[in-house]
């Protein structure tokens, strides 16, 4: 056990210290083999019950948390809001309390509204892990991005990382900013001004709108998904123009640094944010990220479950 880990909840990376983040990444390293090999089950969470409380569509995050919990020996319940009492008018907090009464140890929650995991953590005795709250945070995605960078490039400290695309609506961007800065990386956020609010500079990041100008300084580019529904909201004129200005192409990549690492939290839109050549090229860690995510989520569940109130 790591003596320094005292948190029952993981609500966001903003709350964590550098040491706490490193503790999770180190623990994930230990679980990476288990993540790769389905036969190598562990028993750290045997007898524990974890519920996936997803109020917003998700496939990979929900599956990843479910697998992570099972690989550690826990029982997993999947709860989707559509078929529940929430659709009958029950309040979110009442629903969560009722589910907790089944004897739940941990709740993994995804919700479209920022702060909802925080609300739950105030009303439940169970531990709460944030699997994405609106545009606020997605801490395990941030952690797996850090883990992937550390694995590929050997360090995070001193690197320059570009977060590219729809920053305004991205919880992944915010968790990345907090995590990267705590581990000593420089962060550039880049995209059209409609998707990169100028006030984000107050978080200590460099704000850029010209990708070609900043690319030569970047060690890592994290390509965020463009949400098509945004196009109707006057955020950008067309997919074609977006791709022209911000799409990651081979030509663009060649003007960047040698060995620049490409990350994408997915799901990706080939031909919108990046070309297939880039997505599948040697600089891309997109598929690795999925396996790393499993290891990171095992680490988070293990650490948080080890803390009793």
């Amino acid at each position, binding site marked *: 056990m790591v003596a320094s880990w005292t948190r029952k909840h993981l609500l966001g990376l903003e709350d964590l210290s550098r040491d706490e983040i490193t503790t999770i990444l180190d623990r994930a390293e230990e679980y990476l083999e288990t993540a790769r090999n389905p036969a190598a089950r562990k028993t750290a969470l045997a007898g524990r019950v974890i519920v996936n409380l997803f109020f917003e569509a998700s496939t990979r995050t929900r599956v990843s948390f479910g697998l992570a919990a099972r690989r550690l020996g826990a029982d997993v319940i999947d709860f989707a809001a559509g078929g529940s009492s929430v659709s009958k008018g029950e309040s*979110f907090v009442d629903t969560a309390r009722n589910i907790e009464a089944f004897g739940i140890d941990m709740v993994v929650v995804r919700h479209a509204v920022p702060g909802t995991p925080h*609300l739950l953590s105030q009303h439940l005795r169970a531990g709460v892990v944030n699997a994405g709250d609106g*545009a*606020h945070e997605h801490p395990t995605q941030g952690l797996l991005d850090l883990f992937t960078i550390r694995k590929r490039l050997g360090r995070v400290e001193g690197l320059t990382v570009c977060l590219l695309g729809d920053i305004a609506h991205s919880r992944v961007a915010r968790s990345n900013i907090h995590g990267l800065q705590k581990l000593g990386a420089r962060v550039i956020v880049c995209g059209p001004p409609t998707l990169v609010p100028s*006030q984000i500079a*107050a*978080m200590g990041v460099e704000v850029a709108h010209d990708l070609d100008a900043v690319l030569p300084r970047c060690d890592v580019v994290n390509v965020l998904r463009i949400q098509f529904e945004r196009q109707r909201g006057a955020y950008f004129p067309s997919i074609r123009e977006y791709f022209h200005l911000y799409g990651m192409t081979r030509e663009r990549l060649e003007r960047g640094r040698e060995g620049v690492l490409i990350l994408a939290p997915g799901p990706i839109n080939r031909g919108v944010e990046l070309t297939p050549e880039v997505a599948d090229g040697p600089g891309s860690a997109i598929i690795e990220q999925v396996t790393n995510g499993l290891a990171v989520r095992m680490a988070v569940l293990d650490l948080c479950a080890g803390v009793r109130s």
Partner: protein
Amino acid sequence: MLPPIVIRLRGGRVIDPANKIDTVTDLWIEGGVIAALGDFGNREADETFDCTGKIVAPGLIDMHVHLREPGREEDETIATGVASAIAGGVTSVACMPNTEPALDSQSSAEFVVQQARRANLANVFPIGAITKGRQGNELSEMGGLVQGGAVAFTDDGTPVSSAEVMRRAMEYARGLGKAILSHSEDLELTKGGVMHEGAVSVRLGLKGMPSAAEEIMVYREIALAEISGAHVHILHVSTAGSVDLIRNGQKKGIRVTGEACPHHLTLTDESLRTFDTNYKMAPPLRTQADIEALIDGLKDGTLSVLATDHAPHALEKKTREFDQAPNGIIGLETFLPISIQALIEPGHLDWPRMLGMMTIAPAQVLGIDRGTLTPGAVADVTVIDPDVEWTIDPTRFKSKSRNCPFGGWKVRGRAEIVMVGGDIKQRKSPLA
């Protein structure tokens, strides 16, 4: 027939901003009206209160209150709302028409007046809706509303989006001698917004409402007041830019006034970092620079009124996901101490100036004969202990709701004796 009752408030600091009085003396009340200051012949009092060390002021007026009845009695009723007012030292409230149904007819205004009479605590002055059903399309029957007791008009809670409708409303209200109270908000710019747009909203991933959404509409109202000649009063002014616009309008001689709420003088968007829905309101909590501009506006008279925007919501409604929780906080029982903390303690205003903003200034906006201790006036009186230190505890409130962000705040100053029309409604504060 019994002789009228004589009450003597002895030896208090009598502050009557309307008459520029600030002196230690006795205040005499006879038969429900102010009888005399200082000497009252050799009359004997039926009851005497020692007010040494206390401030004797006109009963406070809160011109921006949501009483929720009819329609949302789970949040507040007229009876609980006026009980909350009295506990806060407020003897008159003006209540907003965003009830269900809206206060948009003579009978609906009369219902409010009747319920207030039954409650028999604070005075209640209904404010009529500008448009039928607060839909922003057709003018309500303003003349009938005035006959039913309405003292001004607003669609508060929502703006009147159409400039044409607002222009005609101002013209029509001018003919009735009543003010238009504007909730200034451009709904397109605030769509989906749940807090002030700025560095904090970006950090939290919450959709913001830019200051410009308020300022665009404040400018529109002032321009329309200019062409209509109406008196427009800007409700809950929250941004530095709005204060500038109002100041410039007043310099041009346009009939525009403005009010500030205690929470906009004491809290900023930083509070939202807790995701506590008791910090969610419209207009939203803004920045320290806005607080300073509002205080400057109060100091130079640009903003003449303090009001609470008392907005009760039942606990189960506020205990929701942040986006789904309703806007607003209650304020009647914290009106005085939070205003003292924001304005008197730092030395921004003295007692006569601040009390003027809570008495005669709102009375003038509404055109009601309250807010003064002039002999012959209705004896609405609040006796304030300015020095008592206490801790705000919302569980003690008389309001039906508890959506208050000031719980646990250590404050100074409290209303003790409260009198309405010479009737003693409270002898000692119930708040601590």
